[in-house]
């Protein structure tokens, strides 16, 4: 993301954004990125993005959590430090259920959160390129890559599909 020059066009409405993307796709223009202030319905489908693998990772992590949570309790209360709780057997499965459930959820949640941050290149200290601060307010942005020679036509393209404003972003170096 750091080396290339980008051309961005912004819109004020998510419906205009989708229309513009479709027009660009008709012209077979490769879209580098789309930035929106909130999740836009239908954006994933129109950009034909592949389904995230995050849920599968979450399931696997949750299953590990299930075994880990239950197994740990089973070890602690039979081998590690068995204690007599009201005469219950040491391996008392019903009493292990709440903690097992919580550990399952914990592992799944942590995997999902960190998986998300890693997968999308975000998180504390991650390098980000902010092209237009208004995207976090009320603007929807399409980014196109621009080689030095193609700069003009990218700008024109974006204006043609209805962008309200176009900017060129040179790399920081």
């Amino acid at each position, binding site marked *: 993301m750091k080396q290339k020059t980008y051309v961005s066009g912004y819109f004020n409405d998510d419906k205009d954004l989708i229309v513009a993307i479709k027009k660009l796709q008709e012209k077979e223009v490769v879209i580098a990125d789309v930035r929106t202030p909130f*999740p836009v*319905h*239908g954006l*994933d*489908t129109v950009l034909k993005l592949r*389904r995230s693998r995050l*849920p599968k990772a979450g*399931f696997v992590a949750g299953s590990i959590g299930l075994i880990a949570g239950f197994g740990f309790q089973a070890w602690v209360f039979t081998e590690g430090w068995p204690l007599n709780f*009201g*005469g*219950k057997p040491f391996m008392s499965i*019903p*009493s292990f*259920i*709440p903690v097992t459930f919580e550990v399952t959820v914990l592992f799944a949640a942590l995997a999902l959160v960190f998986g998300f941050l890693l997968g999308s290149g975000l998180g504390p200290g991650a390098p980000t390129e902010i092209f237009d601060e208004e995207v976090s307010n009320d603007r929807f942005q399409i980014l196109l890559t621009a080689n030095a020679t193609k700069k003009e036509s990218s700008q024109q393209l974006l204006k043609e599909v209805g962008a309200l404003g176009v900017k060129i972003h040179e790399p920081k170096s």
Partner: protein
Amino acid sequence: MVIGAILAAIGIIFNLDHSHRIWANVLLNGFFFTAIALGAVFFVVVHVLGESGWHTAIQRIPEAMGQFIPFGGIILLIVALLGMHDIYHWSHTEHLDKILEGKKAYLNPIFFIVRTVVYLVVWTLLMWKLRQLSLASDRSDDLKLFSRSRIWAAIFIVIFAVTSSTSAWDWIMSIDAHWFSTLFGWYIFSGFFVSSVAIIIVLLFVLRRMGYMEQVNDEHLHDLGKYLFGFSIFWAYLWVSQYLLIWYSNIPEETVYFVKRQEDFSIIFFMNVVINFGAPLLMLMSRGSKRRLTWLLVTSVVVFIGHWIDLYVAIMPGVIGEPHFGVLEVGMTLLCLGFFLFIFFRSFAKAPVVPENHPYFKESFEYDNIR
């Protein structure tokens, strides 16, 4: 047609078995299908009160299911009037022990019958009123009908909140009259509500096959699947809450209920949890699984059978000592199922398939579940 075929099966078995087993089955199935009908009314009511729009596409299915309440009610009334002595220990008023003596003010035959009648009459009246308003809104553009249905929905839900619990205590919990659980009412409710959702899905499948309901799209299926998934987990949560607390405190007065089930009904008892929790949890976890009608159908059938088993575990140990399962159970279930379906299709045919005049009807086809 369906009933006729099954009646024959029943006729054969009836002669051979002990009367309390027969009555227990009548109670089980009578309650199950009445509760499913009631859960269907609750489904519509909840969506009306929540100002939801998507449910209008499928609204006529639960509405027609609700029409079974008076008919199932008659079955339950027959159980109350004729089968009481076979099922409920407290009905033998001549020799009550100290505990049953203490509960006599509530658990006595006359009050029991009065309560049964009140539940059924009130539920039927409310169901009729809501149905009336829904059908009237087809023929008129008067939005006052819509606001009146909200008012009646609110009345229904308050009455339902109380009577769903008290009816569960009366008809099911009082079988084990020496025991009680404060969670029981909602535990039974969660079981029959998820069964209602399962039956809505099954009926949707059947109606699709018949050529109706083509407008119902994947988004509606997704939402129904979410309900099936979520409320199965809710049921499991209540099951665990009830079980864990009784297990932990280990008070004999309370544990007697589960000891009976874990020792004499052990396989069915644990199967109950696996089928009603494990199966829907794993089968409906992925997004795609909730959008495929055939998979939803399979899961719904599993859930339906599972909650029948749940009621079996709740009712049978108190009435008959050991698990018996045979032609009587199958036959009685099919009979009541056939009766339910007969009433459903008759009621469904009496109304337009979709409430096109409903103010939120268009909205039902313009939403999607985010990817």
